[in-house]
């Protein structure tokens, strides 16, 4: 019998992307499955009982040949606060890669719409789709919270940045830029979105309006991360009486086609 492994991964690099946003590059030499865009890992933060549960962390980049992976996160609480103290040479206790991956077409026009720390999984997706024409829409709170602009520019044919307060790029919500482009007749084949629920909900509405296939990357508080504890529930469409059932973000997602999500 062979089993999926728990991984002890050596930290190669730690980068502070903004005041409270960090990326950690790790060695994944002992991973025996490739890491795919959209997936996540469940990371033990701190020792012993300091923080009990693992934290689900986005995969921002990976190189399955060089065997490296970059995780990115914002400090949201005690777990991520401890994770932000990670130093080069430290060992991270990781379960993964977990969850579903983004749809990766061979060609065509794609658009990604990311908000804040929701942009991370979209970077690895864009990087894996060099033969597509890639349009990127990123939204941030203000100029100081803009990060990875250069990285995204390198993997996009066109990049649009918006800030809520107008201190950098477009003044307003990122969804307004997407809407304007769709209205002008620039319709992509697929839209991918990750970020605040409200933003994703507008993106999905626009995608439906223009008949564009759309994938969303969902988030929910998790326990085990592997589909056993059932805490990270999300409403998915069903042909039962109520029209929905409770799926789980860690197993049915995080990436899911928007037409499977039950609204309401």
């Amino acid at each position, binding site marked *: 019998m062979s089993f999926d492994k728990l991984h002890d991964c050596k930290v190669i690099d730690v980068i502070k992307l903004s005041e409270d946003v960090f990326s950690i590059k790790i060695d994944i030499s002992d991973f025996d499955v490739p890491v795919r865009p959209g997936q996540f890992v469940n990371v033990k933060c701190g020792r012993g*009982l300091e923080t009990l*549960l693992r934290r689900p962390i986005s995969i921002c980049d990976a190189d399955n040949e060089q065997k490296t992976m970059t995780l990115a996160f914002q400090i949201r609480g005690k777990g991520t606060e401890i994770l932000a103290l990670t130093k080069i040479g430290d060992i991270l206790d990781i379960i993964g890669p977990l969850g579903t991956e983004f749809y990766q077409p061979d060609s065509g026009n794609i658009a990604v719409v990311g908000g804040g720390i929701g942009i991370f999984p979209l970077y690895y997706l864009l990087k894996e789709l060099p033969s597509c024409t890639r349009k990127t829409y990123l939204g941030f709170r203000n100029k100081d919270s803009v990060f990875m602009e250069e990285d995204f520019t390198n993997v996009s044919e066109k990049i649009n940045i918006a800030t809520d307060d107008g201190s950098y790029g477009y003044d307003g919500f990122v969804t307004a830029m997407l809407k304007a482009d769709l209205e002008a007749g620039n319709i992509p084949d697929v839209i991918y979105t990750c970020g605040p629920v409200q933003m994703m909900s507008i993106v999905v509405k626009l995608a439906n309006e223009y008949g564009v296939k759309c994938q969303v990357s969902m988030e929910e508080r998790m326990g085990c991360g592997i589909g056993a504890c*059932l805490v990270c*529930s999300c409403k998915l469409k069903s042909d039962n009486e109520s029209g929905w059932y409770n799926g789980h973000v860690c197993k049915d997602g995080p990436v899911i086609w928007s037409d499977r999500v039950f609204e309401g």
Partner: protein
Amino acid sequence: MNTAVNICGLIMKNPVIAASGTFGFGREYGKYIDLNKLGGISVKGLTLKPRQGNAAPRIAETAGGILNSVGLQNPGVYAFIKEELPYLRKYNLAIIANVAANTVEEYAEMAEILNDADIDAIELNVSCPNVKSGCVTFGVSAHGIAEVTRAVKNKFKKPLFVKLTPNVTSIGDMARAAEAGGADGISLINTILGMAIDIYKKRPILANNTGGLSGPAIKPVAVRMVYEVSKSVKIPIIGMGGITTGEDAVEFLLAGASAVMVGTANFIDPAACVKVAQGIETYMSRMSYNDISDIVGGLTLNY
């Protein structure tokens, strides 16, 4: 060294059982560990019909523990028997069906269905704090516990364990009620009812407002209650509550439990049950125990 136990007919190669609600039906953990190394599994709480459970968020971490409010999401007892049981049966481990219901009649109906299924025991769930009707409403009164236990025992011929809630004034009274109702054994504790608040939103973190506290934070409460129950009844006890290591498990054995369940620890380390079983063996060899049953109830009070 003998680590095998026989608890009122429930035979297991070691005393470590994966606790209900933390291990699904074994499939997910079967990818990470050899399920043959477990003494048993108590499957996700079953109801007669499928249940969708509560709204999210269903989990909140607290100091040394977690609050959960899943609300018994499960595919129903029939789907369990048809879809999940055949998978679990491929492994050499005891299969315990955790059973929850709204009414005494419904408990009895499930017992009848499960009496014909290839399971090894029932763990009667009268202690889930996260559903609005049935279940724990029976578990907080001696009369309710005795009534449900009797109804299930009538229909189910294999070992019957009653899982107690700690949210009562006298755990000993509840245990005696289960014994009087015909239970073959008792398992405890289920989670402690709790609440965590998001101080900026000024709302509870859990969508259901309250949830059940589990994890290392509750272990001392659980050990005390296991000890109290062991002095209140003659039937065997399965102890649980915050076990993450072999040493933790030994505390429960010394307090009077014949076997243990490991729950929350599985979320942190999928191999937690296996490590707890190994840790018990380490203790046995260090303390020169040849048989695990010699540890059970070995506690001496200070006065």
